[in-house]
């Protein structure tokens, strides 16, 4: 007897949740977990094996990075949660070993932080902040250093025309006497000197409070020529002017209280001159001129997970590969609570899910390991 066949073959359409299954493409799925839609195949994802079974101070790793220092040496580093007095930074060496970096003396009252980090690279140094310690940087030595006369710290960092830029400032740093949160402040260093923030010492440093916008800063990145200051429901653009006294002009794309913005602060992920962020209504790819919604017909499930977030912060990252042998340009959106990472593959334009019995993902990066 001849049976009725219905072949389901690639290119597979990923997870479709927004339409009844009868309207979904025949090669779509109600769920895909720990499988990747990749190169026309439905593949189990790469195996994750042991590397560092514990983290010093038993703190959650918030950021994994790499850089080349001024002497030309390569480094990989971890940034972790920290309590006051603990180091937030560790250098990786072969073994593997997470080597703690020493920190400068702290002012009275200084607090630690469990926020996610943002970083910015300038002049062979990595500056980082997470709203706790004063703005700090790594230069390849065995110490963490604070960024010159920075008035405090911030949540978000970017670089444009040789200025290091802080956004969502906390001045002085958290816990110090008089510490105040400025959720709409943008502050830039002197040109070419990320350790100089005093406008009286160097007039090319400065700051601007975005007083005419209705919402707080939730991220910052530089895409090509301008720097974009992301807000919950809108965007403000910083255009370099070329004038030392006033190096940036600010334009608000939108002043409406509702609109497209980076609603989940650390969902903003930048890759070359484009980025991905999660707004209230969709997930967008933005290239400086146009916004492309990429949530597709998977939004229902993703936003259900976003609504169920609890216990920790949502974050996103664009990953080019899992080392060169496994190309996989994707946006990874991790949602603690449901403890799931939604993965959008740019080659296939589909969403799948990742999880682990070891908890939720807190950082991911391809770095030097030897």
């Amino acid at each position, binding site marked *: 007897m001849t*049976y009725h066949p219905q072949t389901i073959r690639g290119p597979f359409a990923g997870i479709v949740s927004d339409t009844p*299954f*009868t309207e979904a493409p025949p090669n779509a799925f109600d769920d895909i977990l720990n499988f990747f839609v990749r190169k026309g195949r439905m593949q189990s994802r790469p195996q994750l094996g042991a590397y560092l079974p514990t983290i010093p101070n038993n703190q959650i790793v918030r950021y994994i990075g790499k850089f080349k220092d001024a002497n030309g040496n390569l480094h990989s580093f971890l940034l972790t949660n920290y309590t006051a007095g603990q180091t937030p930074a560790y250098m990786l060496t072969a073994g593997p070993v997470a080597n703690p970096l020493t920190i400068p003396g702290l002012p009275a009252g200084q607090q630690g932080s469990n926020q996610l980090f943002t970083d910015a690279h300038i002049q062979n140094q990595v500056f980082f902040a997470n709203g706790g310690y004063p703005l700090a940087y790594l230069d390849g030595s065995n110490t963490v250093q604070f960024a010159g006369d920075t008035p405090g710290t911030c949540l978000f960092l970017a670089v444009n025309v040789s200025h290091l830029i802080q956004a969502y400032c906390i001045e002085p740093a958290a816990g110090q006497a008089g510490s105040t949160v400025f959720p709409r402040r943008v502050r830039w260093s002197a040109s070419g000197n990320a350790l100089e923030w005093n406008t009286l010492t160097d007039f090319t440093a400065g700051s601007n409070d975005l007083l005419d916008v209705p919402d707080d800063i939730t991220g910052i990145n530089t895409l090509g020529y301008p720097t974009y200051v992301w807000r919950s429901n809108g965007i403000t653009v910083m255009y370099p002017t070329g004038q030392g006294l006033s190096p940036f002009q600010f*334009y608000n794309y939108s002043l409406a209280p509702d609109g497209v913005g980076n609603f989940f602060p650390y969902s903003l992920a930048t890759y070359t001159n484009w980025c991905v962020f999660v707004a209230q209504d969709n997930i967008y790819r933005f290239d400086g001129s146009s916004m492309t919604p990429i949530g597709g017909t998977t939004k229902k499930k993703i936003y259900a997970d976003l609504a169920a977030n609890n216990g920790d912060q949502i974050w996103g990252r664009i990953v080019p590969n899992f080392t060169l042998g496994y190309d996989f340009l994707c946006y990874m959106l991790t949602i603690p609570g449901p403890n799931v990472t939604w993965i959008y593959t740019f080659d296939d334009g589909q969403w799948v899910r990742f999880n682990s019995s070891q908890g939720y993902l807190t950082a991911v990066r391809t770095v030097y390991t030897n």
Partner: protein
Amino acid sequence: MPATVISGIWSSPIIIFTGTDAAGLAETGFCVVPNTQNGPITITAGNITFGTATFSVPAGQFPVTLNPNQSVIIQVTMTQPADSLGKIGNLNLVTNTPYSPNVALSLIAGNPNLADFFPSQLSFPITKVGQSSTFANAVIVNTQNTPLTVSNIALTTGTDFFIVGAPVVPFVMAPSTTTAPFSLQFTPTVVGSRLDTITVTSNNGPEARTLSGGGSTLQSAFNLTGGVQGSLFALSGGGVPLILLANPNSINTEEPGSFVRLHDWQMPNYEKKLMRIRGHYEDLGPATISFKARARRIGQPDETIQANVSIGTAFADGWLREFTSEPVPLSGELIQLTCSRAANSGPVSIIDYTPQFEPAGEVIGGT
């Protein structure tokens, strides 16, 4: 590339070019032109009405449409003339309305320099005190129409920057010729910003250029060779945070995985009896997958049938092979099919799969 439109009324009625270092080289300038009208306008063309020998408008910027209260950034190119005289020009923008703004164009006199030195400025990276930067190359260009005699090439202080392989002076350069490249190197003697000046002296006088660099005392620690890279996944852990390393050569996932789909096989209102599942996979090594079929009826427990299928061989040669599940007879109008694999149960790379079923009459009710 189309001209860029920005919000707001901005105006720069003149573009001033400072000139390039040699005749024939191009310099790009920008102007901002507002739409000051009450309705939208479309700029259809930008014409150089005079100064066409020096100024031009790069193609592809037009048409561009501006709404009221918007401005546009227009690009203009200046090509350095052979003489050192100033030049002026005018850019006229043509729109679909009588509005036709003009932008003045100006090239400052005095360029190019006669015995010119390329690049016009040299900035060296931050370098550890006592160590040397990589070499930076430079050349001297005779930009005039007569021979040029270069009598000296010298640094003002010469403590941190060095000239390597410069031509022996004096020498004569024919018109519009360039010397062979020679090198400059930075070896800081102290920490901090270091400056020097290189001066090329010719029969037209001295021509000076700034050299800059920074000295550091950085003592690198915890260095890596960069010979090996790995993708690290940090996880919250069960109270003990940890980091795992992705293996790009193995998809034998350490966690269980699955993909799920509810089927009616485009035959609504008919019972279907799922008989078999066939498919193809890429042989990456032995693995086990499981197909679970589930049907549901009101008031009755779910009907489920599961079949494990061994796939892959020890050859792991990437060959496409076929699999066939054991017969899994199960009936329903809607059948949910789950393909899953257990943790560490082998690499799975499915190319396609085909549920095979028999129609079994109209649904009476109760699904």
